């Protein structure tokens, strides 16, 4: 067509995603450093006893000197958390698809699941330990899986139910089957919601595994380490283990964000 055709310009891709991330993180980093320094100062100048609150420098020291023990304790904990996230995601998506198939009752079921999500699932840890044995990771994985499943179900089901009328009508116009509507519209449309649920679930699963391990008997794990060192008033080691547990949670969060960027590329396709 000739040059007289009005030329429409596509919306420009938001570049500088990295720069945006950096400028978003910078204030948090500054705040973090300030908080750490104040903590260090309060402990040193205020003469706070180490068993009450060790200085960040002491915790850092413990992290370095206990590194081998921390690493070996982190392994079963991380394994349990990752297994729980995978199982919770799979179970959650499966349950969501089943719930969303019955559109008449889906909202009611969803409300019940959301209600169940208000209960502190970790409180079930001793019960699961009794059922599945406290020394294996099975009981931890079970409790954590439950913690992941609930927010995944709540979010994913909402996503599956929220089909845009235009999309539904379009699929109807090409005589698409229910299965095709699910595969081509409902499931991809629910992916962003699934990841929202997964992020909440991941945080809960770290909590669930660690707390579960408090009651956990003999196996070597972060929660066990935290409980044991606290019992022996070795609070620098306790804090070091808490620090590693936080790192675990953060890495999981980052990993999920990474997977989301690959699985839901359209979410970042515009600046909006």
């Amino acid at each position, binding site marked *: 067509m000739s040059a007289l055709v009005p030329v429409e310009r596509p919306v420009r891709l938001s570049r500088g995603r990295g720069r945006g991330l950096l400028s978003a993180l910078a204030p948090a980093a500054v705040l973090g450093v300030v908080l750490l320094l104040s903590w260090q100062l309060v402990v040193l100048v205020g003469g706070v006893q180490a068993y009450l609150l060790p200085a960040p420098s002491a915790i850092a020291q413990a992290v370095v000197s206990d590194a081998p023990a921390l690493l070996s304790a982190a392994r079963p904990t991380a394994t349990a958390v990752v297994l729980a996230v995978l199982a919770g995601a799979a179970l959650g998506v499966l349950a969501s698809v089943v719930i969303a198939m019955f559109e008449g009752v889906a909202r009611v079921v969803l409300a019940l699941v959301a209600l169940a999500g208000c209960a502190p699932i970790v409180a079930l840890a001793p019960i699961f330990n009794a059922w599945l044995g406290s020394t294996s990771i099975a009981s931890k994985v079970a409790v954590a899986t439950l913690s992941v499943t609930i927010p995944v179900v709540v979010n994913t089901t909402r996503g599956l139910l929220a089909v845009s009328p235009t*999309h539904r*009508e379009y699929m109807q116009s090409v005589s698409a089957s229910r299965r095709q509507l699910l595969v081509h519209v409902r499931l991809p449309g629910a992916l962003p919601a699934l990841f929202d649920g997964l992020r909440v679930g991941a945080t809960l699963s770290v909590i669930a595994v660690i707390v579960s391990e408090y009651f956990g008997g003999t196996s070597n794990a972060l929660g066990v380490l935290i409980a044991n060192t606290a019992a022996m008033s070795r609070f620098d080691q306790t804090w070091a283990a808490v620090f590693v547990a936080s790192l675990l949670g953060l890495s999981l969060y980052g990993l999920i964000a990474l997977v989301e960027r690959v699985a839901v590329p359209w979410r970042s396709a515009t600046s909006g």
Partner: protein
Amino acid sequence: MTTPTTPTPTGTAIRLAGVSKTFSTSSGDVVALDDIDLDIPEGGFVSLLGPSGCGKSTLLRVIGDLVTPTTGTVEVAGTIAAEARRTRQYGMAFQAPGLMDWRTVRRNIELPLQVQGVGRAERRQRADEMLELVKLTQFADHRPRQLSGGMQQRVAIARALAMQPRVLLMDEPLGALDEMNREHLQRELLRIWRATGTTVVFVTHSIPEAVFLSTEVVVMSPRPGRIASRIPVDLPYPRTDETRLTDEFQAAERHVRERLHAVLEPTTAGL
């Protein structure tokens, strides 16, 4: 009265007989369509024009078997509408482009073919042809949200055309566009229609748009939705921007406007 100009209708693509539609709402029944009889010739470009709420969208959806009429019959391509939809005779585009954010432009156009079970290679080839047709080849791998509204609407039109439908149903597809893009897409739509020979039913509330595009303008009146008049547009194709400036075009526009106002006046008087 038949149109003496090209393209010559060879048969009836769409036939509605005694079609009415009543919606039951919490505030009572709404008669959206009342006893509609309408024949649309094969290869015709028919616009439905009328004030909002007169049942244009409902009529289009009844033709497309997305809304079941309360009474009456709808025949499309020689069968009942439900069968026509089942055998995928329709291409539809609505006011909202309704593209899938999770698919690239090309994969959006491939969607109806995928639903139909067309193989990967052929799907891709057909999508590329459609992209060519709407002049968006260079945006094949973009995401819908990276495109302007006008470009998205072109993708939606390409998607509607991908199955090479016997019948193209469009509900104010250009409604959200600015004047420049609107006229540009009108020209493209005519080009595509003439190239493919599909039957088009086109909902609009713009008089010049209806006149420029159509072989026939159907004016509808509200409460209850009825066909007020059918106006053949005897302007020769191809129609260009020069066509808009001709006396014949302006006379046709005036004629449609008068019929539309005849519909509007009793309504405003009744309020």
